[in-house]
């Protein structure tokens, strides 16, 4: 069977396919198992750089500033994302506390700073041998950063407590909202085919220089 070279394979069912160059805005799915193979995204590197840098700016206030103040019986209570982790830890639920810390603080921070540094390095075309490892790490990290789920959790909490206490939103809440928006939009602008392609082209230009 003659398949155009180099061929590609579907990650969902291993079907060998012709390598089609996608048109602007085109989506290509596997004919056998319908896995999305490729979706064309414009200016992926620049977009990811812009969005992830703005996300990084609000990261510290989003995690450490209080989300909201609850008032009931004349008493006030504030809490930040970091406080939720501390509360669980103090109650003795170490496993849950550590998972909470990883999924809501550590992995989102790692993911957004990795995306920022990778897109910056690609933008200024500065190749370091660690770059492929960083991008591989992003693939494995992806589903463990759960800020958007946390945000839904906060909304549900608001509905749960609004008739028990008075709610006043603080700066942390808006920072966190912005952080979630930037994580969602940075991962939707992230085109991993494009990123790997850029890395490969940099590797090849280094090889060419060496042979000269």
């Amino acid at each position, binding site marked *: 069977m003659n398949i155009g070279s180099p061929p590609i394979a579907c990650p969902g*069912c291993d079907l060998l396919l012709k390598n089609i160059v996608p048109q602007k805005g085109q989506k290509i799915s596997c004919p056998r*198992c319908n896995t999305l193979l490729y979706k064309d995204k414009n200016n992926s590197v620049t977009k990811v750089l812009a969005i992830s840098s703005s996300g990084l700016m609000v990261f510290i206030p989003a995690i450490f500033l209080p989300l909201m103040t609850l008032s009931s019986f004349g008493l006030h*209570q504030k809490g930040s994302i970091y406080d939720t982790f501390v509360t*669980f830890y103090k109650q003795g639920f170490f496993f849950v506390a550590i998972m909470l810390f990883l999924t809501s603080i550590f992995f989102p921070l790692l993911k957004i700073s990795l995306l920022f540094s990778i897109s910056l390095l690609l933008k200024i075309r500065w190749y370091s041998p660690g770059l492929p490892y960083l991008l591989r790490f992003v693939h494995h990290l992806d589903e463990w950063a759960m800020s958007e789920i946390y945000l839904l*959790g906060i909304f549900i909490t608001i509905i749960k407590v609004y008739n*028990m206490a008075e709610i006043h939103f603080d700066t942390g809440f808006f920072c966190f909202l912005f952080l979630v928006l930037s994580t969602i939009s940075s991962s939707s602008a992230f085109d991993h085919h494009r990123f*790997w392609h850029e890395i490969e082209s940099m590797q090849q230009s280094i090889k060419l220089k060496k042979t000269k």
Partner: protein
Amino acid sequence: MNSNTETVQTAMAAGYMLCHDCGKLIQATITGAGERQVCPRCHSTLHFRFPNSITKSWALIICAAILIIPANVLPIMYVDFLGTGSYSTIMDGIIYFFHSGEYGIGLIIFFASVLVPVFKIIGMTMILLSIHFKWKSWLRHKAIMFRVIQFIGRWSMLDIFVIAVMSALLHFGVLTSTEAAPAASYFTAVVVCSMFAATAFDPRLLWDA
């Protein structure tokens, strides 16, 4: 591209390995076991299929299926409201929402913390059994089901986040307080196990059978 569907050839049959991390297709040069080939682009070890994929998925799914029992039977939250404390399980929380008329929120919690974990465990078991017994029907649907399982898995953490925010914020000294209860640990473990089970599973094995 459609012309390929009639004469199906897999990359493995043609001697190509797809890199798990960067998606580059590479001609296999290894001949026997014990040899190792590395992706020239991202330096990860190449395999035709994920190593020990079925065994790992089975182990983790069985783990999740065992842990889901204490997660649902034991209380997940302790609420002390004006001196009267009460423990509540996952289902109690959902019933509370339905009683107080918040049907939308009740449904979201019901989906995220009851339906999704159960659906994941049953779905993964069906997929693994169908590979074991080489059931070749509904392959496309099973592939879609696996992608759905992979996508929705993480949303089960929702209930844990709600409890976390509640226990940090709804804490007014002796008057009112919220605390997590033992099932929170089991429930987190169910989510982690089933997420790892989906990551360890290689969907290409469905089509190989």
